């Protein structure tokens, strides 16, 4: 039996998040998969049209409802479950949105969930990291059991867009969505810098930056390089950088071409987030810091001297 995959789209109401194109790529590695994308929104038109152009997508299911204006798992999960019948796999991204939602879907279905899929060996066999990426586990679901999965973003390239579009079908939301969960607000710092999760260059700072003020030398260099800025947990906990900048096991897992760790010791939980970076640069005054074990280029020294020097050299 060939796979029939439902990818649950992530979006902000206007634009499809690139995470969805990565889920589609993952779905395409299931041989002969038929792929549909579900878009839940208050007005899904624009997002559905973007999903319809992703390479490999055969149809888009648009679920329009005012309650879908905000991505609340308790509101969305029953709508996806109502569509789940014919599908063998339901995939969403391993982003906070997808992790929150997909597990609720799995719970409603009583289905197993494979979290953070990093490789597909067959329609029933998947590889995923455990222990903060210090071990890779291959799991196998029984034949004929629906599998819910979240897709590890750093493991799949985004599916390309194509010229023609797959058909978009409107699906009515039958049951009234629950009202026990209400959206209040979202505060995003919102910067002009590239998005941490998709940037090809990332510069991250650790506790050594010493203050939010200290981070400015990283922003300045990042802006010269067109890089995104990340942070270690210690830097976020200390209030030097906002939470959405955290990289690691409990922050963002990223795979840039270039990752520069500045004043970061290299705890395993941090390294989990950068394992797939193409090139890692470490700048640390302690030559014994564990970050040097994974760095392609290591420079021992004081960051407050080195970063301005680099900025001058590239500027």
């Amino acid at each position, binding site marked *: 039996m060939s796979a029939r995959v439902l990818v649950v789209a992530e979006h902000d109401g206007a634009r499809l998040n690139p995470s969805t194109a990565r889920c589609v790529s993952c779905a395409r590695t299931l041989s002969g998969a038929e792929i549909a994308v579900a878009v839940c929104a208050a007005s899904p038109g624009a997002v559905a049209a973007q999903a319809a152009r992703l390479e490999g997508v055969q149809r888009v299911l648009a679920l329009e409802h005012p309650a879908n204006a905000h991505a609340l*798992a308790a509101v969305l999960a029953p709508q996806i479950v109502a569509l789940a019948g014919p599908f063998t796999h339901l995939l969403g991204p391993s982003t906070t949105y997808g992790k929150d939602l997909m597990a*609720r879907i799995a719970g409603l279905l009583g289905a*197993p969930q494979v979290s953070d899929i990093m490789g597909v060996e067959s329609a029933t066999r998947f590889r995923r990291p*455990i*222990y903060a990426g210090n071990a890779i*586990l291959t799991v196998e679901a029984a034949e004929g059991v629906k599998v819910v999965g979240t897709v590890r973003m750093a493991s799949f390239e985004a599916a390309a867009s194509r010229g023609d579009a797959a058909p978009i079908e409107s699906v009515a939301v039958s049951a009234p969505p629950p009202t026990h969960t*209400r959206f209040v607000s979202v505060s995003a710092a919102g910067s002009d810098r590239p998005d941490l999760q998709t940037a090809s260059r990332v510069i991250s700072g650790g506790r050594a930056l010493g203050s939010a003020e200290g981070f400015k030398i990283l922003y300045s260099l990042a802006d010269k390089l067109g890089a995104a800025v990340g942070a270690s947990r210690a830097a*976020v906990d200390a209030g030097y950088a906002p939470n959405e900048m955290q990289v690691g096991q409990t922050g963002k897992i990223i795979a840039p071409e270039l990752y520069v760790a500045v004043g970061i010791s290299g705890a395993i939980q941090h390294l989990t987030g950068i394992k797939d970076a193409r090139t890692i640069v470490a700048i640390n005054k302690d030559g014994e810091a564990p970050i040097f074990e994974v*760095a392609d280029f290591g420079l021992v020294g004081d960051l407050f001297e080195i970063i301005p020097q*680099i900025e001058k050299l590239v500027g």
Partner: protein
Amino acid sequence: MKRILVGIKRVVDYNVRIRVKPDGSGVVTDGVKMSINPFDEIALEEALRIRERGAAGEVVVATVGPADCQQQLRSALAMGADRALHVEAGGVIEPLTAARALLKLVEREQPLLVILGKQAIDDDNGQTGQVLAALWNRPQATYASKLELTGDSARVTREVDAGLETLEVDLPAVITTDLRLNEPRYVKLPDIMKAKKKPLETLTLAALGVEVRQQLKLVRFEPPPQRQKGIRVKDAAELVAALKQKGLL
């Protein structure tokens, strides 16, 4: 009585560098330090603070797992939980099984809130809270970094990819914790002694009417691929030159 149920899991301590067994059947856990999952300590701390503010009367900790887990339940009692429930179970406990067992405890204890960790740092599944909320048909607020109780509802700030999101959820609800929700207290020696006298009840999955169903077979464990050892550069100029040469700048 207003009660908070906290789910805790015994895991390999986060400071341990785990090793995969040479035959690929698992990771080495013999003689390895075990602890309460760090997110669950945060869950317990939050529950204790709510009780200490007078917004709840009792904090109950629960775990589903083998007999060894009682050590972590005792640690939780030493931290300040009032009672512990041990649902004895062997083998692989998948999130769905853990959530089904927790649901039975929820039905029994009728808590105002259930607080779990956002993920267990061994399996890194990050599912149990959401699965429980689904089975219970109640709200979920995952990745909490701030929790305020306001009568019949809770206002929860969540750490999401975009920044901080605030939700309002009717109670009872399931909350899962992120790292910045609080800093768990240290346990003092007298508390460890006191904890020995606190009630710890042992139940079985069978008695709760939950069957263990393993839906995902664990086929193989492998160490992750190692990165090639890199080089040291002597100064900023050499670094920039090397990156330019690789086409990275």
